[in-house]
Structures are given as structure tokens and as C-alpha cells.
């Protein structure tokens, strides 16, 4: 058990390193450039109307304070961390004075919900088909299904989502192609609302599953065709153990841990895909928020979103990392 604690603390160290490197990168990208966020913000605001010089001066002072831009670079860096630790990401510019954290919290459930459900579906679908295709190597049907999914896999998220949008928006308009729910819907909790939300999530989820499942399928198929040559599978076949049992308890069971490790390693990429897909379908999550923040020049919101993405993905990776070895009895302390 102590060994497991050592393992957890080591993975925790890695988590801290990811967060440290990621946040530092975020900080230095934004602070080492010639661009002055305060001036940018003021330009953005004054674009909407005239402002007298005095007001601009006041605005400059306030914004400098709010963005934590006083003092030298190192002081700003420390302040950035302390604010982050308090969960204070400053006020949003485009929705002044709503705190950035509040805006992000509103968008977060959409992204998390879409990401978890799409990842689960593609992980299960891809791995199931992959295991079957790797075990029953001669099945035409499985080969065909594999080919279809693998063919979709290299297409970038954006393009596939775009194609779905055209297909279901113009060619065969049966599904809602934008938003997370009907514009004028009654947002109090009801069955209709739940169904509506589900209907809106079909296309984004479908895009994610179509791209994601192929890579799980190829991975699992390769793993399976390696595992079937292992002695314990040969032995079980010689033992007259049924093929479904061999597939389930011998093949899939042994492929699970490496596939979960793979899941942890690709979470960053999956998050990318989710965010990009959201943008295409105008899904009200982190991705759409990020784009509108960029267009509105909302400095603290962009910074907050980037930081939060890094921390969130790192924590998810950490959780999968520390849980997956528990499935492998060889890893357990004796």
C-alpha cells in the first residue's frame, strides 16, 4: 500500500509539473509580447463609442490593477499565481463586471458533459469493435466497419463537423445544427428541455465519436492481435475454453490497462477536438466562449479559459493515471 502511495505522489508531482509548465507558458506568452492588453482593451471599448481622455486614463489605471499588471514581470508572475490559487481570474471585459470565473462556470458543464459522453461512447465503441476485429480476423462485416471508422479517423475535427453541418443543415435538415438548446425554450427543468438538450448534442457528439472511435479501434485491434499470440490465450484455446470467454476474460481484460493509459495520454487531444467541434456547432461551452472572448478582445477571459483548460485536463489525466493500475493485479503491492 505504501508503494501505491509513493506511486500516487509521483503522479501528483507530474500533475504539479504539468500545471506549473502550462500556466507559466500561458503567463509568459501573454506577458512577453509587445502587445499591451490594457491598450488593446481600451481600443476595444472605445471602438463602441467616444470616451474622454480622463475616463481613458482612469480606465487604464483600473484595468492595469484588475489584470495584475503592476510591478515588474516577476512580481506580476507571482501575483498571477496567487490570484489563480484563489480562483480569482479577474472581471470579464465583454461582460463587465461579471467575474471571469462565473462565466466559465456557466460554460463548463456543457463542455464536460459533451466531452465525457462522446469520449465514453467512442472509447466503448472503438474498443469493442477493435477487440472483435482483432479476434475474429476473417469477418467481412467487422473489416468493413473497421475500414469505415479508420477512414474517418484522420479527418480533422473541424472538417468533419463542418461536413456534418452541411449534411444535416442543408441536405437533410432533421437535427438542430447550432446551439445547446432551443433559443426560446423555457429553461426551467423539464423533460422537454432534457430531450431538447440531448437533440442538440447529437451532432457534436456524433462528430467527436466518428473521429475518436477509429483510433481506439486501431489501437485495440493491434493490442488484440498481439495478445492472441500470448501463451495464455493459446493455452486457453487448447483447454477448450469458449471463444467469447477467451475474448472477454483473456483478451479484453489484458488490453484494458494499456488502453486506459492511452486514454489518459490523449485527453489533451480529445479536449482540443471537443472545443473545436463546439465552435462549429455554436455549442455553448468552453470552445465557443474562447472564440467569442478572442473576438471581443476579452483579455482576462481568454487567459482564464486557457489556464482552466490546462488545470482541468491535467487533473483528469491524473485521475485516470492513478486508477488504471488498480485494474492490473500485477501492479498491486503484495
Amino acid at each position, binding site marked *: 500500500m505504501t508503494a501505491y502511495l509513493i506511486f500516487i505522489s509521483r503522479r501528483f508531482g507530474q500533475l504539479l509539473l504539468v500545471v506549473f509548465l502550462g500556466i507559466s507558458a500561458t503567463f509568459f506568452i501573454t506577458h512577453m509580447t509587445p502587445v499591451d492588453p490594457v491598450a488593446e482593451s481600451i481600443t476595444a471599448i472605445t471602438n463602441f463609442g467616444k470616451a474622454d481622455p480622463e475616463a481613458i486614463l482612469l480606465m487604464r489605471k483600473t484595468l492595469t490593477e484588475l489584470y495584475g499588471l503592476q510591478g515588474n514581470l516577476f512580481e506580476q508572475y507571482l501575483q498571477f499565481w496567487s490570484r489563480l490559487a484563489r480562483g480569482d481570474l479577474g472581471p470579464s471585459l465583454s461582460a463587465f463586471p461579471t467575474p471571469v470565473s462565473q462565466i466559465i462556470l456557466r460554460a463548463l458543464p456543457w463542455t464536460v458533459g459533451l466531452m465525457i459522453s462522446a469520449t465514453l461512447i467512442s472509447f466503448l465503441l472503438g474498443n469493442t469493435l477493435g477487440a472483435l476485429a482483432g479476434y475474429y480476423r476473417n469477418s467481412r462485416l467487422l473489416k468493413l466497419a473497421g475500414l469505415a471508422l479508420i477512414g474517418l479517423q484522420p479527418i480533422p475535427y473541424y472538417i468533419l463537423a463542418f461536413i456534418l453541418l452541411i449534411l444535416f443543415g442543408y441536405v437533410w435538415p432533421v437535427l438542430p445544427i447550432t446551439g445547446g438548446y432551443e433559443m426560446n425554450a423555457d429553461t426551467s427543468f423539464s423533460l422537454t428541455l432534457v430531450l431538447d438538450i440531448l437533440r442538440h448534442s447529437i451532432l457534436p457528439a456524433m462528430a467527436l465519436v466518428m473521429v475518436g472511435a477509429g483510433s481506439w479501434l486501431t489501437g485495440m485491434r493491434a493490442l488484440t492481435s498481439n495478445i492472441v499470440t500470448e501463451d495464455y490465450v493459446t*493455452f486457453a484455446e487448447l483447454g*477448450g475454453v469458449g471463444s467469447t470467454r477467451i475474448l472477454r476474460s483473456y483478451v479484453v*481484460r489484458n488490453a484494458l490497462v494499456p488502453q486506459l493509459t492511452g486514454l489518459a495520454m490523449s485527453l489533451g487531444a480529445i479536449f482540443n477536438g471537443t472545443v473545436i467541434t463546439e465552435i462549429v456547432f455554436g455549442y455553448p461551452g468552453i470552445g465557443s466562449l474562447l472564440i467569442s472572448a478572442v473576438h471581443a478582445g476579452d483579455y482576462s477571459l481568454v487567459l482564464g479559459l486557457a489556464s482552466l483548460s490546462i488545470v482541468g485536463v491535467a487533473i483528469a489525466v491524473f485521475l485516470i493515471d492513478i486508477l488504471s493500475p488498480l485494474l492490473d493485479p500485477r501492479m498491486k503491492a503484495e
Partner: protein
Amino acid sequence: MPTAVLQTPPAPAAAEPVLVVDRLRAYYRTHAFGLDRDIRAVDDISLTVAPGEVYGIAGESSSGKTTLIKTIVGAIRPPLAVVGGSVRFRFGGEIRDIYALTPAELQTIRWRHLSCILQGSMNVLNPVRQIRHSFQDFAFPHMGLKPAAFWQAVRAHLARLDLDPAVLDSYPHQLSGGMRQRTTIALATVCTPEFIVADEPTTALDVIVQRDVLTMLRDIQRRLGSSFLFVTHDMSVHATVSDRVGIVYAGRLVEEAETPTLFRGALHPYTQHLVASLPRIGDTTRRASLPGRPPSLADPPSGCRFHPRCPLAMDVCREKVPALVEAAPRHRVACFAVSGAPS
């Protein structure tokens, strides 16, 4: 020497054989990137095994002995293919041709009548499940017992083999190599099959453990009266456990005799060399090696495959393949120097 203790008198030859392998050929057929190759790993092998007999197969690496037993137990997977001949077992008075059975029929024979022990490596038992599950998967469907009675029978069997029933709740990695191999033997014998195939079952084990495992194997074989096909490259293991030994060289059976005959009066020059080159404690007379190298199965020498290394090679050996003929009762050999060159 304890060797004598392990020996049993050979089974009477008169009984109907439990296994008849007839002119078996199995090739590895590969065609990758335009290269077509046949590796003739089993080339025209015929042999029989009597009930209660331990038949040993000896041969060096890539002599085809592993392929031979894969083919005999029906565990072939492309690129390996059976090209000719037959493998027939006699289970409960019924002849079963391995390559004429449906997969479902084959599955009902496995473990009930025909079981296996593989090389005692780490990997024979599913690493992520407890041993209990292996017993359940392998033996339960074949025993026809209610669960309670089944587990009682398993525990009794383990106790007979001096194994702690606690192994059932262990994972394979928690056991030592020797314990794993004993557990595998218990698993292979729990259904009291008529025929057991053992492929290098003690090769990965340390000497002391090897001695114990061999004693256990011989002991359970005598108790169950099963027939064994026992494959190993190690001639001293054959000397210890096998009643009869067949020597495989480059995919062919070159000599076959009862073990004492083979060690005292081998006829084939290859066998003679194998026996003579074994070092023994207490004996420092010089041991020699054969010249040349084992032939490639993809491109074997013409005629007798041993002729490039043979001290007795004649012209006919380069051209004709010697047949495996009976040189003495129950002693077959494939060598022109023994049987005389054909006219």
C-alpha cells in the same frame, strides 16, 4: 541413482494405440511482399503412442518438434497449415480424427480427453485473473459436476498433488516458476484425460525444481494411466521420463526406440552423437561436436537431411531420402548405413 526410481516398465505394445500419426506434413506457408516460402517443419512423420506410454520427442531448436505437437493437438493457425496425413486419437474406443472434427466437437474433446502442459514460462496462465478462474474456464465445462462438487474435486486433486488449495486464490505472478508449473500440471490432469501433451515442461526451471516437477509428472502419469507425448531438447530429461523416444531432425523422424535401447545402442549417427556428447559429472573424457550447422527448414539438403554433417555419408545419402524402417523389434531408424543402400 534416482533415475531408476522414475522409470516404469514400458507399456505392453499389444494394446490398441491411443494416438496414430500417419504421414503427417505441416508447412509454414508465407507469402509476404512477393516472397513465397514453404517451411517444411513437419515432413512425413508417422508414429503411434500406446495407452499409458510416455513417448518422448527429442530434437534441437527449429527441428520442427514444436510444430509437430502443435499439429498433433490441432492448434494450427496460419501461416502453419497441414498439407497431408492424419492425426487420429482413440478416446473411449472411438476413433477421432483431429482434422475431421468440427470446432465444437474438438472443443468437447479438449481437456476432457486431450490436455496440454506448455513450457513453464510466466505467461501460460492469464496474468490478470486468479488461478481459480482458470480451473473454472478449463475444467468445469468438461466435468459435468455441480459447482460445489466441482470445487471439492479440484481441492481433492490439488491435495493429491501436495498443492495447497490456497493457490486457487493466487494470481500467477505471486507464485514461483516451479509452483506455477505444478499448478499447470494440476490443471492439465484434473479431468483425468487419456492423453497429455507436454512441450518442454521443465525447460525454464532450475535443476532442483526440475527434478521435483518431473517426479510429480511421472507420479501422476502412473496414477492416471494417461499417455504422454513429452517434447524436450534435453536428452537427460528423456532418459528420466520417457518410455520411448523419437529423434526429430530437420522436420523428419530419424530414429525411434525404447529409451534404454536408444541410450545404449543408438543406430543413427545423429542420435549416437547426441548421446555421446552429453557431459556427465564424474566423466572428463573429451566430448566432440558435430561439424556444420543444423539445416534450414526452408531449404533443406537433398536426400538424407543429415548427410552434410554425417561421418558415414555415402553417395546415395545425397540423392535419396532414407525411409524409417524397423531395424530391430520396436526400433526404427532412417539411415542407409544401417538399412543398406537401395539398389
